[in-house]
């Protein structure tokens, strides 16, 4: 809503000297937002004054144009020092009665006459756009100023001719020639631009804003729409209400209207300042009253109406051409205004073309009605048609304003368009009753947390128009018709809070409850993230949307769980209508973006949810007037897809860059395994690795990772084809784990074993096995065979080549033995070593390398 300060000031007795920003602050404290405060005429500087055309001569030019050479009286203070050139060659120029000369000005417009009052920009003035005026010779004359049009002054868009002022100033006093024009016209103004929240529909009007401003500033308010609605009567144009979505319809008739009369400048300028264009007088009046009162209204050409006006639901198959020239198929849920020949308007949204005002219109029927906000909102959405009217009706219009606003339209049609108001009027229906509420007088203070005594509460609410009846400690409240937002007890708490001022609230930290802190799962997830970061991985975030082609590119099979896709009804991009079932495509996109920007060495990771569709099931829209049952709540959860958190990484480039210390280390499948191991080790879990052939990994370079029998994820080098399809560097590696599953396997922090002070015994063991034997299996065998004295086993070398036979490899392990309670004897160590060798032989067909 754009609101000129001068208009608000008509109804709220604003303190003198209050500027637009201060008015804005007052309105902000009342709960409004002020996006900007603009100054009208703020772009003008220098002498722009009231002048009077003394005489003029039209001079046709060679280019076909006619210019007008004028003498203009701009008062003694701005008079030129020498006489202007005469109007006609040889004619003497007379001194004006005050003993000064008029100014000579060339004007391109012809819409004025000698004797008219006009606005003159004198040399030295600067017009909007930084246009600086000087005296200049043009069309054979020395033009000593400019007679201005509305747009040239920055007051509007009108450029149909120069601005001709009325015979007297708005105050009724005569114009003072040479006086500042904007001041004299009273158009120097500020405009507040305010978005209005849905609960403050009444502030989509100057009336509402003035009321709020007056209350915030504690100054008197005059209601421009204060006519009480009379009881139902039907002596005007016939109206029948056939739907409960329109409880009130006022119809007044004005005859003898001349629609061709020009819109007065003051009215056009107000519309322009409020963001509406001036169109013609009756439409301008209609819009003006809507802005002023907040009541949308409509004018019909009475001669085009066929029979009574009927407000009803649209009939199946009905159509209507609305004023925006669109032929619309109506829905039976739409409220239409109709006559005997069919619909003539989409109720509360937009009028129809058939009964639109024309140049020939002489009799006007004014409609001011009240509509159900939800019905209007639905119709507006259904037809994708938002209008100034629907915007207001959706937020609820004051039903008490309909009658007064209709009379305001009529009054202006009479005053400005020469019409006559017919005394016969129609009031169909009535103003709906407002809901009564009872609250404890102490409720506002209790909820706000600051003292507001009962007297103060009553005073504030009464000032807001609420009818208050005190009943001991209780207050019986009925809101005014313009406050449909006052329904629940807390609505009144808000009203009191806003009017007292939220800046008065004390700042009190609530007493600390006993909290449990982060849950174990939350702590573990944080620890995993920190550990991965310490290990050198960089966290990124990506959008969780997926295309089916992503899964194809990954090589994911038809029966793979990652095909359990959830589809969005209205995806952001039609190319990615699904939710992710794997984090990898998002990470691949991040790799691409990084490498394209020259960040080549990457170890990226993301932790986030994936979405795995189950059997599609609907969740219900439960009632809101009671708590749903536990079974109903459980049913909601059961219908939702699984959404486990995953943890994934992608690696490429160098893990360690080559440098003066030696060659670097390319990032590869090993580091994808490190990623998984680091995450698991935070939980004290060791991941068992088994070779796996799973998309999108290289079939020979991928490990399934498990804890016990539970597979928690996969890691390894990506399939070369996948790298190609996603534009990843060759040998890019990746890992993806089910983070929630992994964390659920945490076995607890465990107990602390006594630290043995006895010496360690170190034994090295070289075992020769077939190439296909995984070293992890060999280590497992050693562990099993060596028994409880074995403290650790570590692979430190793999050797292939003579004298190790072809197809076999020699694996060297460092074993450490230690007992908790004594120093190991040689025989004990030898026995453990032999046990390890025996187990390796038995399980892995290993031979001890003794050459």
């Amino acid at each position: 809503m754009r609101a000129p300060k001068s208009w608000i000031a008509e109804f709220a007795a604003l303190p003198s000297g209050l500027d637009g920003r201060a008015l804005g602050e007052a309105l902000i404290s009342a709960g409004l937002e002020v996006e900007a405060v603009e100054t009208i005429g703020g772009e003008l500087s220098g002498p722009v004054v009231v002048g009077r055309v003394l005489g003029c001569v039209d001079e046709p030019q060679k280019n076909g144009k006619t210019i007008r050479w004028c003498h203009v009286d701009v008062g003694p203070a701005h008079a030129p020092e020498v006489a202007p050139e005469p109007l006609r060659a040889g004619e003497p120029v007379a001194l004006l009665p005050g003993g000064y000369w008029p100014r000579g000005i060339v004007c391109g417009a012809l819409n004025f006459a000698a004797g008219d009052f006009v606005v003159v920009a004198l040399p030295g003035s600067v017009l909007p756009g930084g246009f600086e005026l000087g005296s200049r010779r043009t069309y054979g004359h020395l033009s000593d100023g400019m007679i201005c049009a509305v747009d040239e002054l920055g007051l509007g868009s009108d450029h149909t001719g120069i601005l001709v002022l009325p015979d007297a100033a708005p105050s009724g006093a005569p114009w003072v020639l040479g006086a500042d024009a904007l001041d004299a016209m009273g158009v120097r103004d500020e405009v507040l631009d305010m978005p209005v929240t849905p609960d403050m529909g009444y502030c989509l009007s100057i009336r509402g804003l003035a009321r709020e401003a007056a209350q915030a500033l504690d100054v008197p308010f005059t209601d421009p729409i204060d006519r009480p609605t009379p009881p139902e009567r039907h002596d005007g144009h016939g109206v029948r209400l056939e739907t409960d979505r329109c409880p009130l319809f006022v119809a007044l008739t004005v005859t003898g209207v001349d629609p061709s009369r020009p819109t007065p400048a003051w009215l056009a300028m107000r519309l322009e300042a409020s963001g509406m264009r001036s169109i013609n007088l009756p439409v301008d009046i209609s819009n003006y009253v809507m802005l002023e009162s907040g009541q949308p209204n409509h004018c019909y050409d009475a001669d085009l109406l066929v029979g009574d006006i009927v407000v009803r639901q649209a009939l199946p198959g009905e159509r209507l051409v609305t004023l925006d020239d669109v032929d619309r198929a109506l829905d039976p849920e739409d409220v239409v205004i109709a006559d005997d020949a069919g619909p003539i308007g989409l109720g509360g949204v937009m009028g129809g073309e058939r009964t639109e005002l024309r140049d020939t219109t002489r009799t006007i029927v004014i409609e001011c009605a009240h509509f159900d906000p939800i019905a209007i909102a639905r119709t507006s959405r259904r037809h994708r048609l938002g209008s100034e009217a629907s915007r207001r009706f959706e937020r609820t219009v004051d039903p008490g304003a309909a009658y007064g606003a209709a009379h305001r339209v009529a009054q202006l049609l009479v005053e400005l368009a020469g019409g006559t108001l017919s005394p016969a009027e129609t009031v169909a229906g009535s103003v709906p009753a407002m809901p009564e509420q009872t609250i404890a007088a102490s409720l506002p203070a209790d909820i706000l947390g600051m003292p507001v005594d009962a007297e103060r509460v009553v005073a504030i609410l009464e000032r807001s128009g609420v009818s208050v009846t005190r009943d001991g400690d209780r207050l019986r409240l009925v809101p005014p018709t313009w406050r449909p937002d006052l329904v629940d007890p807390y609505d009144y708490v808000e009203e009191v809070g806003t009017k007292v001022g939220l800046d008065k609230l004390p700042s009190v930290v609530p007493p600390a409850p006993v909290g449990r802190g982060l849950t174990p799962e939350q702590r573990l997830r944080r620890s995993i993230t920190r550990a991965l970061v310490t290990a050198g991985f960089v966290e990124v975030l990506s959008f969780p949307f997926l295309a089916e082609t992503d899964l194809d590119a990954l090589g994911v099979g038809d029966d793979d769980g990652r095909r359990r896709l959830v589809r969005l009804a209205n995806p952001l991009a039609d190319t990615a209508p699904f939710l992710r079932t794997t984090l990898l495509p998002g990470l691949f996109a991040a790799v691409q973006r990084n490498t394209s920007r020259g960040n080549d060495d990457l170890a990226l990771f993301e932790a986030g949810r994936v979405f795995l569709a189950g059997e599609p099931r609907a969740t219900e829209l439960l009632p809101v007037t009671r708590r749903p049952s536990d079974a109903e709540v459980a049913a909601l959860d059961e219908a939702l897809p699984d959404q486990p958190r995953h943890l994934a990484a992608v690696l490429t480039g160098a893990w360690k860059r080559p440098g003066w210390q030696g060659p670097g280390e390319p990032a590869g499948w090993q580091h994808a395994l490190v990623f998984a191991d680091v995450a698991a080790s935070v939980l004290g879990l060791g991941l068992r690795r088994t070779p796996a052939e799973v998309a999108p990994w290289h079939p020979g370079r991928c490990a399934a990772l498990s804890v016990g029998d539970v597979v928690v994820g996969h890691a390894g080098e990506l399939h070369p084809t996948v790298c190609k399809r996603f534009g990843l560097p060759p040998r890019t590696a990746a890992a993806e784990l089910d983070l929630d599953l992994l964390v659920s396997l945490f076995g607890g922090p465990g107990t602390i074993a006594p630290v043995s002070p006895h010496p360690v015994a170190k034994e090295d063991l070289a075992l020769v096995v077939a190439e296909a034997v995984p070293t992890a299996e060999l280590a497992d065998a050693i562990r099993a065979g060596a028994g409880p004295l074995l403290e650790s086993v570590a692979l430190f070398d793999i050797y292939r080549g003579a004298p190790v036979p072809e197809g076999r490899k020699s694996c060297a392990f460092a074993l450490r033995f230690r007992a908790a309670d004594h120093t190991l004897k040689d025989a004990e160590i030898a026995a453990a070593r032999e046990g390890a060798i025996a187990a390796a032989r038995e399980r892995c067909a290993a031979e001890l390398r003794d050459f």
Partner: protein
Amino acid sequence: MPDQDHSPLSEAAVERMVAEALAAIAAASTVAELKAARLAHAGDRSPLALANRTIGALPPEEKKAAGQRMGAARARVNEALAARDAEVAAAELAASLVAERVDVTLPVAAAPEGAIHPITALIDLMSDVFVAMGWEVAEGPELEAEWLNFDALNIHADHPARGTTDTLFVDPLEHHQLLRTHTSPVQVRTMLHREPPIYVVCPGKVYRADEFDATHVPVFHQIEGLAVDKGITMAHLKGTLDHLARAMFGDITTRLRPNYFPFTEPSAEMDLQCFVCHGESVGNPDLDCKTCRNEGWIEWGGCGIVNPRVLAAAGIDTDVYSGFAFGMGIERTLMFRNNAADMRDMVEGDVRFSRSLKGEAR
């Protein structure tokens, strides 16, 4: 006494051997030379050792004097050896320390530089502020039941936010499932599953069918808070938000400005005083503040007293309990707090963005 003079055990002979030994020891300047001198003058085949062996052949009355002479002589040599040994070792160490000098300004290879995403860092940081106050951190699904995201929060069926232009729905629409538009459904879930007192914050990812530009992302993060207890007031809300604002931004002025949300009543917008211009750009033509657009205040988040209709739908007795709730965007907070200028950077995964924050955020 010429015989005696020529005897290897004579005083003169012993003095000569000692003098030769001392000279050789003094002349040794390396560990190796000293080793050679030791072998030559104190070893088993050294003149002193050989002379010593002849003592046994002396007549008994001479043995004592000779023995004492030889003992003193060998002691002098050994002392000299030990002293020289220490000198030579110290000199060699000093020399090697000089020789082993390195360029300590060489770049050294650290582990790869990992980083937590600034959004995650901020979520943890803000959560910790509340955990320290005794609050808990609640989480919930991102793909939600429409009822929990809207109806239970008093957002009625005709609210514009429920349209497909604002909210991402699961197909088909009749299944009433959506990507949550705020983390408020977690608040509802908490109220459904727990008795008051409830003090929880709900951080997490939220979704809007929004355009994607420097100041809008369709997938972003929020942290919301909910307190439900006996006697909860708007003043408690103000106190809690003031505390959070100070924890995040240091000494900063806040204000509550009336606003409207369906799920709170009274509702307010929480503003931070602009920490760039401190409000001085307001109405000041000479000072143009891009941060607050010369308004002096920056919108941080929405808040209010929980609408009793919301409490009732979650089964909380509104005669006994009241509550407050608030919510703010993490991305927005990051923009204010750490000057992140372009929201797109937050989701594009550039490692340089992830590595931006220091200290607390690692």
